């Protein structure tokens, strides 16, 4: 996957920076990034105050009562959008680490920084549980994974999301430990230093510690992936599929997870771009990384369509009445309304498939687009908005269904507009993402020192024939 960007031929994207030396790494990642500039302070204040809106929105939603689950529809949309958007990003680090891709090394930490959002996912999940309709023990019976277990979705789902969060924090800690030690030893700022001392413990980089570190990353990573799949599974069954009578769709959890990964990767590429521009970390988030991730983005975009189509072709072909009503609910809208464009469900779906699949696919299938900085960023933004449409289509439609239980959905519910508290919650929750990550980056370097160093060690330029060749080490 590596790089011709240092070679002379055919790279029109401007001369890339030479690889950093270890001293420059320290300077960039420990000293420079940790200097609290006025800009950083402003950002923290803005995002922090906006974040409080999330608590206000959630509180007002709770105050509006938990009897009627349909008023919670936009709370669900916001929550599951932000969850899907951020929970999958660490997989970019975990998966590529498992695949031993060398080029991902400078970016892994940024992906893992999103693990810091785990507690936020847990906190804002709790009101949702209160708002959700009972899934077990209703008459007529409800389709549910939990049979008639009284603790129904509540207990298992809260366990799932907390386990995911705890695993994530553990993984972030394990991954950051060597860097925390570096911050402990070298940071100029006293507060940071004392924080780092408190968390870095006695890391001194012995051979034994590195071996433990490697296996900890492997095990926690694998566990995080498993929990990610299971959390998407139970979220999408309990809070989407179960809400609609007659909807049986085992691929939907996989679609939910894959589309979450896709929009997550979109956000990840966008945040790499922002760090290049705002933070001046262009040396670590280079063309090679954008190129590599945009290839993954292409694959995930294809998967979006594949998983969606696998369900659609069955529903279209089978012509079973209860599945036709699901198609109406989620894709084409109520057939009673004759004009396709007057059906809100169809518009939401068109937004989802257009911005999550059609446009990104047509753009990112071209290598010149993938092999640029701006191209993948724009596609990433498009995909994020497509993901918003997709979660909107899924959760606002399913949570609008008042009918609980039964064999088939009897009528497609009308579209409802979000109120002010929904909007506050949305803005607040979204601001929480940069706020928490920026806060954490005060202590944890946002580019991994140890992995970047390792990557630098593994690439050499050597004479070969009458030219030079790039040699990439493949340990193990």
């Amino acid at each position, binding site marked *: 996957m590596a790089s011709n960007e240092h070679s002379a*031929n055919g790279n029109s994207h401007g001369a890339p920076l030479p690889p950093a030396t270890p001293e420059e790494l320290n300077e960039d990642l420990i000293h420079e990034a940790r200097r609290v500039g006025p800009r950083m302070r402003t950002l923290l204040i803005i995002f922090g105050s906006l974040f409080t809106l999330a608590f206000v929105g959630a509180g007002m939603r709770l105050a509006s009562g938990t009897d009627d689950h349909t008023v919670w529809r936009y709370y669900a949309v916001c929550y599951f959008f932000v969850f899907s958007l951020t929970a999958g990003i660490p997989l970019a680090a975990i998966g590529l680490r498992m695949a031993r891709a060398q080029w991902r090394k400078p970016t892994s930490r940024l992906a893992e920084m999103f693990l810091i959002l785990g507690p936020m996912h847990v906190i804002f999940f709790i009101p949702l549980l209160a708002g959700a309709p009972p899934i077990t023990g209703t008459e007529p019976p409800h389709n549910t994974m939990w049979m008639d277990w009284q603790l129904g979705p509540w207990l298992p789902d809260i366990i799932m999301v907390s386990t995911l969060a705890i695993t994530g924090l553990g993984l972030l800690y394990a991954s950051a430990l060597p860097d925390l030690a570096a911050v402990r030893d070298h940071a100029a700022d006293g507060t940071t230093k004392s924080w780092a001392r408190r968390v870095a413990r006695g890391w001194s980089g012995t051979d034994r510690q590195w071996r433990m570190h490697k296996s900890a990353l492997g095990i926690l990573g694998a566990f995080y992936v498993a929990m990610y799949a299971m959390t998407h599974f139970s979220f999408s069954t309990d809070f989407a599929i179960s809400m609609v009578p007659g909807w049986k769709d085992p691929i939907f959890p996989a679609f939910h997870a894959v589309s979450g990964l896709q929009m997550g990767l979109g956000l990840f590429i966008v945040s790499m771009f922002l760090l290049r521009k705002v933070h001046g970390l262009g040396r670590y988030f280079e063309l090679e990384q954008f190129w590599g991730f945009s290839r993954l983005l292409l694959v995930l975009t294809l998967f979006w369509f594949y998983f969606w189509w696998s369900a*659609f*072709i069955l529903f*279209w072909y089978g*012509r079973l009445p209860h599945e036709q009503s699901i198609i109406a609910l989620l894709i084409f809208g109520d057939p009673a309304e004759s004009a396709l464009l007057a059906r809100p469900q169809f518009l939401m779906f068109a937004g989802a498939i257009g911005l999550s699949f059609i446009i990104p696919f047509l753009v990112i299938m071209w290598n010149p687009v993938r092999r640029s900085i701006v191209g993948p960023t724009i596609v990433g933004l498009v995909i994020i908005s497509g993901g918003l449409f997709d979660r909107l289509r899924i959760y606002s439609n399913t949570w609008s269904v008042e009918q609980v239980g039964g064999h088939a959905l009897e009528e497609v519910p009308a579209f409802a507009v979000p109120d002010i508290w929904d909007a506050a919650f949305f803005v607040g929750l979204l601001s929480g993402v940069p706020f928490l990550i920026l806060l954490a980056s005060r202590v944890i370097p946002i580019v991994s020192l140890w992995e970047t160093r390792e990557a630098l060690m593994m690439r050499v330029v050597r004479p*070969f*024939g*009458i*030219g030079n*060749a790039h040699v990439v080490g493949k340990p193990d």
Partner: protein
Amino acid sequence: MARQNVLGVYADADSAAAGARSLRAAGFTGEDYEVLTGNPYPEGAFGDHPKRNKLFVFPIAGGLTGFSLALLFTAGTQAAFPLVTGGKPILAIPAMMIIMYEMSLLFAMIFTVMGVIFESRLPRFSGAGPVYDPRITLGYIGLLATVEEERIPAARQALQDGGAADVVGETTTA
């Protein structure tokens, strides 16, 4: 002007690089010689400049061909034989999409292979061409200089100086 070929055969990559250097020292450019190898070498290892190719045109053309053929086939057969099955519309778009998808890719693949063969300046069924040495598939590296008639001795000398195991061939090409 008549151009002629002379092929220097080198036992390994280092002597081939030396041969290439001595060719360059003798005033030949990368346009004047070509490398023949038994397996791929890193780009530019012997000073050759790979020319851009138009391969990407082929799969696109193939894909479009396949797509149109499939559209004709699926829409045409359904319209020509309009029987209702299972209450489905006569133009059943999801079913058509599956076939159009497959046929686009089928033709894209066929065209790609045709493109690779065409762009590689193949096929030539009479053998490996005028100046060639079977040792190339034994790991030897050939430097094939194609130059004007009067510069042939110079090229021959340069190849020899680089440490060629053998210098063969001298056939006129058009």
